[in-house]
């Protein structure tokens, strides 16, 4: 099946119902001039309670102020964001649907591994304030103190420690890269797979697995229950200063950046409605720089950094390219 959904078939069969047909046919300038005249949907392709859901809900009041219209959070979880992404692409490109999502690496991964019926370039970033990194951690009461110890143990016997990780994720790629760099055969490891960052973190904090490789930001509320062993970042991460860098453990390995989360729209909107796109980017910028917003989100450990559309798009596409390079590790 392609992205040509049953709904589309019906629409064509019905001769283009006046409702949708009229909207598309309307001159774009007319639409842009009145925009926004009704509530705007924020599509979050994750369940309630995840980072993006929290970010969208916490940021909404400040963004609403800039947009002059209320925001409605629409959670469309499933299939590693593929369902939510397809849903967003199926909405009319009129600016009444924007996304709050972990754009990278989820969008590239659904394309590379699940054969999702869209391209990485179908999405245009507004701003990706949150930059996450893979964190290798163990439970607070564990005997393991450093990442070097982990490597040493696994070198002796690859099945001596159980490893909790989400398959087909940046964390998985980083784990395999670190193991290969340390000459450990990844196929001999005792890997326990989790279908999300949350369950993998709970398993790490609850000592169900010996070592977990998961996005570090989600660990912040559980800080006292885990011991950080290595963070897969190039320089010290300001939101998790106690986490030692991977390089400090003596493992020399390439790594991919973790989730890049924030605000995005479809490229179709950017191309067809440049005015609306500019308006949205401006609203996100002003809300991100609002001191009240910065203070409120900081307390909730949510990011507001303004990188802007160009820098965010570049980071997103770089991540996609790196994912494509290492896609064989994930299969």
């Amino acid at each position: 099946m392609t992205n040509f959904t049953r709904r589309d078939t019906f629409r064509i069969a019905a001769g283009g119902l006046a409702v949708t047909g009229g909207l598309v046919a309307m001159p774009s300038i007319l639409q842009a001039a009145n925009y926004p005249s009704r509530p705007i949907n924020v599509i979050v392709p994750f369940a309630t309670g995840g980072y993006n859901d929290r970010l969208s809900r916490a940021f909404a009041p400040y963004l609403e102020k800039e947009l002059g219209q209320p925001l409605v959070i629409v959670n469309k979880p499933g299939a590693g964001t593929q369902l939510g992404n397809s849903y967003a692409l199926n909405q009319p490109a009129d600016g009444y649907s924007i996304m709050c999502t972990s754009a990278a690496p989820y969008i590239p991964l659904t394309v590379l591994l699940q054969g999702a019926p869209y391209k990485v370039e179908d999405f245009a970033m507004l701003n990706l304030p949150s930059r996450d990194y893979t964190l290798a951690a163990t439970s607070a009461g564990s005997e393991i103190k450093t990442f070097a110890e982990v490597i040493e143990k696994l070198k002796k016997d690859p099945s001596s420690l159980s490893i909790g990780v989400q398959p087909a994720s940046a964390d998985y790629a980083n784990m395999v890269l670190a193991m290969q760099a340390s000459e450990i055969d990844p196929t001999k490891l005792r890997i326990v797979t989790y279908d999300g960052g949350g369950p993998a973190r709970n398993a790490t904090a609850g000592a169900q697995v010996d070592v977990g490789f998961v996005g570090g930001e989600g660990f912040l509320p559980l800080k006292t229950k885990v011991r950080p062993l290595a963070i897969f970042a190039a320089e010290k991460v300001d939101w998790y200063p106690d986490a030692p860098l991977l390089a400090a453990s003596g493992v020399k390995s390439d790594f991919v950046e973790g989730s890049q989360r924030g605000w995005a729209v479809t490229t179709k909107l950017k191309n067809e409605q440049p005015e609306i796109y500019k308006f949205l980017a401006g609203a996100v910028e002003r809300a991100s720089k609002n001191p009240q917003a910065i203070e409120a989100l900081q307390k909730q450990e949510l990011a507001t950094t303004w990188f802007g559309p160009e820098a965010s798009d570049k980071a997103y596409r770089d991540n996609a390219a790196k994912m494509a390079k290492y896609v064989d590790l994930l299969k």
Partner: protein
Amino acid sequence: MIDISAFQDALGIMFSSVGSWGWIVPGLIVGLVFSAIPGISITMAMAIVLPMSLYMDFFSAIVFLTSVYTGAGFGGSVPAILMNIPGSPSSFATTFDGYAMSKKGEHNEALGYALFASTICGIGGYLLLLLVVEPLADIVLRIGPVEMFAVALWGMLLLGSLGSTYISRGLLAAAFGILLGTIGMNTAGFTRGTMGIPVLLDGISPIPAMIGLLAAGQLLSLAGRDYIIEAEGSREVSVRRILKGCWGTLKFPGVLLRGSIIGIVIGAVPGVGSSIGNLIAYAETKRTAKDSATFGKGNPKGVVAAESAVASAEGGSMATMLALGIPGGGATAILIAAFMMHNIVPGPSFIETQKPMVYAIILNNIVQAIVLLAVGIGFIYVASNIVKVRTRYVLPAILVIATLGTYAVTGETAGPITLFVFALLGFALQRYQYPVAAVVVGILLGRMLETEFLRSYQLSGGNPLYIFERPGALAIIGVMLLSLGMTAWGKRKQNRAEAEEEAAMLRLQQEDAAGRAGSHATKT
């Protein structure tokens, strides 16, 4: 254990913010009404009122949202009992005996039983939470894949108590259900059986499938009837009879206790707990009951068992939320979002620094459960009037609500289509005497069975002896086997007693007949 000075401070918070108590009743009503609509989940109800709570002060907002949560915990059992439509997987077991009681005209009592079981065990769960909030949260966090796999197996034992004329058909139905439950992407990232349909990547949506399967035989067959309940005299709505059910609950302290323990421990496990706790509590109660043959035919103990497990789980999932900041489900995720909007981050540091506030929240939940008793009776009274409306009005309306409700789950017509497809399947299965409930159990537990089995396998590296390193799992399996063994032993004893009784009766009859024959003989 409980911190006395913090507890006193908590009482202070409670009484100094009496104004926020006013939010309890509106919250409960919102929760009750929303969750009584099939397909509208607690999560959705709370997401809708979340923006409203932004404008309240912190304690009022939390009181309001937790009241919605408390009300919604019970609301789902109303359609389950009156119409055999479980609003969410956690009220599935309530339908077994609840709907059967309704058909007998005992809907008043059934709802009364459900309400009392729900509130009593809700209070029990919160009281325990008050005492051991941190240890409880730690225990929940330590429940790993092996333990959960044991729990899932325990849930599957329910199949044994579903009762079917043909065991083979029950087993086929269950296996088919489990396979349906594993469709989509599994926890290791393999995608099976989706036929290229993207919605199926996440598996078959359980709520539409469940409503479809159950609705087929029940709802559609109402078309030929004038009212949901056939007997005219039974179609009354009476507070007296509701209260009779309420008091009746107190006659089953053992059932309440067992249900609560199962609910607190299993129901609290993040993610999967709530949909399995009620099944295990029901199966355990049925298996250990002397009158197990009447389960599924309107035995109030079945309703009490299922509801007690659902309600007591609320306290448990609140524990993981408060103490660890981990959402046990969608509803607690919204609560965390609400906390954070008031710049309070639940988790270990919150519980250390703000103990009085934690206690105040728990105490308020207990108050809510007590208020729910009164509000709930009113709600039941209003909702029960549905039995007085002719099916020609009720049935179309319910089917429309069910269709819209399944649309509401994901916002796509995939929901209503799932509903319809499974309605057809349910109809065919019922026609040839396959237990539809076995398919539902399979769909609900299939994914969990596979996920936990797979993780246990991965964790152990394929070595079955690994289980001896997990005392928790051993304990669960031990309890399960003990319970099975005791039932088998009890059944044998019972059978023997029955056989003896029968033999005695037979002897008596023979003697009687012989005596009569003898007397006849002497007369003539």
